[in-house]
């Protein structure tokens, strides 16, 4: 068997918070990502879903090295990334790219589209100026932007078009993996559909793998082959797309799916819905045992004690991994 493109093992990212001791050590740590493991195969898209504060964005940023990992490992084609120096990262920056949520904040307002797209090409040493110019035009064509707009500034584009510029920039170095952090959640539905279709088309065309972070399960379902569900810094379930949607196993996955509103009054008003009680607990002070047990609608029924005191491990069963005592 060949190696997966990306292997994430026991990845953790803790942030020091609160008052510090005399020596400057933090007294408290926020466990944003707390032991996450998954693999991404070449050309396969993994959707990472969960609610705000569950650690999905931190997870993505730690993988691409924007945050140093607290512990655990991230391997790209077998090469450990967490211990690389800035210089050592450079060849992998080309292979692993990122698209951000806010297309307004992630483009330099003082650079033209040509300059924005030329920067990665220059950095990775891809071609002479003339070749780079042609490459920029073909990138614009690939993401559906008018090549005549190459001298425009970001503020002259709409939100959807700006996200296309962000995508073109990510494609510049011919990456194998693109980490997409909520790339469509700032966009209106009619524009969102355009970008989702574009991402699907580019994946086929360039044989890309995506790590796709989103809170919108319907968008993830359209774009991803596998889905990982995160809650309070941990993965609770990971499985092929159809398994997650047809046959969710973790009580949190079930509740999350049932909370998604359907744009159809007949379904919406007749279906059974699991309404969870309470809020997501603070990652500063996570509950003991299974992090989901205080809100779990099933924990009380069986073996409640184990749920309260023992953290369930993510166990692999066939093609599905699950972290639940009730299984």
């Amino acid at each position, binding site marked *: 068997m060949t190696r997966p493109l990306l292997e994430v093992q026991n990845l953790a990212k803790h942030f020091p918070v609160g008052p510090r001791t005399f020596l400057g050590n933090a007294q408290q740590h926020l466990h944003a990502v707390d032991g996450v493991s998954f693999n991404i195969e070449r050309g396969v898209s993994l959707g990472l879903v969960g*609610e*705000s504060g569950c650690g999905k964005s931190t997870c993505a940023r730690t993988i691409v090295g924007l945050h140093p990992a607290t512990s655990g490992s991230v391997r790209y084609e077998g090469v450990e990334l967490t211990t690389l120096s800035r210089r050592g990262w450079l060849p992998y920056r080309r292979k692993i790219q990122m698209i951000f949520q806010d297309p307004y904040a992630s483009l330099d307002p003082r650079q033209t589209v040509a300059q924005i797209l030329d920067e990665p090409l220059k950095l990775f040493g891809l071609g002479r100026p003339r070749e780079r110019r042609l490459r920029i035009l073909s990138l614009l064509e690939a993401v559906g932007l008018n090549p005549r707009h190459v001298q425009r500034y970001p503020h002259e584009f*709409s939100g*959807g*078009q700006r996200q296309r510029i962000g995508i073109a920039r990510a494609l510049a170095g011919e990456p194998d993996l693109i980490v997409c952090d909520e790339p469509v959640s700032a966009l*209106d*539905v*009619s*524009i*969102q*559909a*355009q970008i*989702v*279709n574009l991402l*699907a088309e580019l994946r086929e065309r360039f044989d890309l793998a995506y790590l796709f972070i989103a*809170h*919108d*399960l*319907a*968008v993830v*379902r*359209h774009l991803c082959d596998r889905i990982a569900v995160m809650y309070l810094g941990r993965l609770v379930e990971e499985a092929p*797309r159809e398994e997650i*949607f047809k046959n969710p196993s973790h009580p949190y996955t079930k*509740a*999350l*799916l*049932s*909370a*998604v*509103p*359907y*744009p*159809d*009054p*007949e*379904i*919406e*008003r007749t279906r059974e*819905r699991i*309404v*969870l*009680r309470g*809020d*997501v607990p603070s990652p500063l002070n996570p509950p003991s045992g299974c992090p989901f047990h205080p809100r779990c609608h099933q924990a009380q029924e069986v073996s409640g004690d184990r749920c309260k005191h023992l953290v369930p491990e993510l166990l692999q069963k066939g093609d599905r991994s699950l972290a639940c005592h009730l299984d």
Partner: protein
Amino acid sequence: MPLLSVKNLAVRFETHHGTVRAVDGISFDMEEGETLGLVGESGSGKSVTNLALLGLIPSPPGVMSGQVHFDGQEISALSEPELRKVRGNRISMIFQDPMTSLNPLLTIGRQMTEVLELHKGKSHSEALRLAAVGLGEVGLSEPESRLAQYPHELSGGMRQRVMIAMGLLCEPRLLLADEPTTALDVTIQAQILELMAEVQRRHGTAIILVTHDLGVVAGTADRVAVMYAGRIVEEGPTHQLFKNPHHPYTQGLLSSVPRLDSDTSQKLSSIPGTPPDLAEMPPGCAFAPRCPNVQAECKSERPELLPSGVPGRSNACPLYAPADSAEARP
């Protein structure tokens, strides 16, 4: 007589780039206890409509025209002091972001008692008691001790519950809810929507729900009005409008929403192009540049919202012809 009757409401802003017609002549009626879903994309004018109903458009640069009748009174003609007696009392509003619409410097109790003391002349201790009852009603635990807390001590879902409780304290006849669940996670959104439905059952409050989320509207609204570039392009009972949308924009909007039960082997259908710049509106139908069925006449005259031949429904696309009257039967 309807509870709320809006006629030709328009709001324009004079800006450096020209006149922006954020709301461009909309009319609708609402009955007691009804929920109207006002949907549309960003910039379609749905939030400005809500603000205009309560006279909350800053002027200058905003200029408002048209008539709003509420409960037999023309509130669009009221003076500012008279309007203040209506706001938070007979009509109240809940906003999208409870963190920016609650005062961070005042305790929950201080903010909640204000409306009761102002509108209902309650004593402070009586107002505190009623505020605690209100918080209990929206499902907050230990309501008495919450009154002494500040907004930052509560989670997003709890803050939104406080906003709802505050909006309902004076038992308003009409509640304007502007994207009340957009800032919340889906599991919390489900809780808040359930809560609003329950409150409505109990008090018979009419609700205008402004949202971009068609799923939220599908589950809660009795009727839906779809807005595009400052106008209502289609209006009708929720079930009919979702099942058989008449206007090409509504059709495009509904089919571009990814669903949990749609076919993933197909591309998502999307609407090409982007919404028009409100400062530089095209002549004719605002949707014409993106419309799949566009005709030459669409580009010259802007169409009016007219009854579409099916009872309770209206539509602003002159190209729509009622195919059959099957859905008109109950």
